[in-house]
């Protein structure tokens, strides 16, 4: 099978896992992904609950026939696009460089020839 050989043994991966570089990468990833996920799930649930239990507020007119419900719904789209863009930027700056550094330091540049296919 055409699978790249894993040139690090299990104990070696444990050494990588315990290294300062890897722990930094893990905490950069987790300190972004976990709180942001909790945040947007709560924001979405707030929207769902308001739709069910606060019809008066949601029906308030903002401009013309556009009401709070529509604005809040469209805001869910806006925040989704914004969080996606924010993560793309964060990952390019804070996750990709350390991940590449760890790969290179361990002598295995995985998929380097295919990078162009992106």
């Amino acid at each position, binding site marked *: 099978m*055409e699978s790249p050989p894993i040139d690090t043994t299990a104990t070696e991966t444990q050494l990588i*896992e315990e290294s300062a570089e890897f722990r930094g990468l893990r905490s950069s990833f987790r300190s972004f992904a976990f709180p942001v996920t909790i945040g947007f799930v709560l924001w979405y649930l707030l929207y*769902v609950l308001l739709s069910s239990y606060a019809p008066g507020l949601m029906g308030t007119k903002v401009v013309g026939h556009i009401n709070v419900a529509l604005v809040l719904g469209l805001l869910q*789209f806006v925040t*989704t696009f914004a969080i*996606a863009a924010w993560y793309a930027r964060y990952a390019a700056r804070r996750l990709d460089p350390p*991940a590449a550094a760890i790969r290179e330091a*361990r002598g295995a540049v995985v*998929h380097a020839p295919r990078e162009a296919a*992106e």
Partner: protein
Amino acid sequence: MNLLATSATDHRGLTMTLFGIFVLATLGITVWAGRQTKDAADFYAGGRGFSGFQNGLAISGDYMSAASFLGIAGAIALFGYDGFLYSIGFLVAWLVALLLVAEPLRNSGRYTMADVLAFRMRQRPVRTAAGISTIVVSIFYLLAQMVGAGSLVALLLGVSGDGAKRWTIVAVGALMVLYVAIGGMKGTTWVQIVKAVLLIAGTALMTFLVLAKYHFNVSSLLGAAADASGKANAFLEPGLKYGATGTSKLDFLSLGLALVLGTAGLPHILVRFYTVPTAKAARKSVLWAIGIIGGFYLMTLALGFGAAALVGPKTIKASNAAGNTAAPLLAENLGGGAGTTGGAVLLAVISAVAFATILAVVAGLTLASSASFAHDLYANVIRRGKVSERQEVYVAKWAAAGIGAVAIALSLFADKLNTAALVALAFAVAASANLPTLLYSLFWKRFNTVGAVSSVYAGLVTSVVLVLFSPVVSGGKNSLFPHSDFHWFPLENPGLVSIPVGFLAGWIGTVLSREEADPAKYAELEVRSLTGLGAH
């Protein structure tokens, strides 16, 4: 009565021609892709050679089912604002996939979802559980698409009677098996890309035409829709569909949870991340998918309110009580109305796009479930890994035929089932059985085999049993068995209960078992998932 059927003869020939061209073109692509398919990585993962943008289009093509195109536009046309609530859950869900699942999965798995779940566990029990849940989710989803296809053809071509419906189901089933068995992941991906482009182009054209009628003033479109609906401003506010009782409000919360947490656990979506070369490309494909899918759902808003304003709920309901023909009826209206050439052409184009949509989605589902059967159940559980790559792919192709046959048989038997409930059920099972196990596997060091197996089975069994004893199956006007009543669970969607059960079972199973997680295996998974070191 059936306005669509009376004008059907005008456009039927044209629809069939356009659809015939789509089928021939995609079969051509499939044969070409089949010639390029040499090994298992080609068959299961399209050789991992697609770009982030191509995969983003294919993900959109895999995700935007006929239920979103016809169902959401129809729900907005009939229930106004409440129809829009679906699309928000379907879109926000992609952030879970982007932030927590896509990249680690791409790095640590190979062909199936179970590759990641079983990475540091005992292979056979975990792969069995994951394989079963993959096939169950995919079959529910397949049923929804195929039953939907049957009714759609009857409606759009104005053919009545069960015969036409049955032949459509059989034809759709045969085509999806051909796409998968001949073209593998490469063929399926290109079918999904072509479909995504067609669907976006068709939707964009209609959105432009609707907005142009209202001089690009959204407020006057909304005003016209509210007036035509006969429900005035209530049409633009939440509550027409889900606000009736305390139970329906809870049901909506339950559905909302299942939608937002289900996407990142749908096997046919997860395997798409294996078709790109790197985790970075997987991230790019989700970013593209979020843009494309978000834009599409914004456009369905214009289509739904446009159908309410221009066609009117009475006409839509007369054609199909659930509103599924709102988008095609709107196309006919925008083209110039029933009986005009423009109307017939636009109606034919949109009908053909709807068929293309169904075919691309069912092909993705068939591929994901047959891959899981061959790679997880056959190669790793039955043969314990002692099987050649060639044999495995051979089994996968026959599994596609087998799953196609099962799906056809079930669809013929269950053609009265409510398709929206089936899709919601697939999302609920994915959110309750697959997502908790996936997240624990990736991020919780102590998680072990007992935890993984408990989480999958508890989530799967709870959601299926709750639906069996819900108003979906018995005790309601729209139930599968309207004349008997054995329901005791009040909600139509089980997510509110089954998702917490899935998460709890994974935690309890892990804590209570004496089995210790292997720290070396977790190190390997964690390093691989975050850096791509050793990834396939």
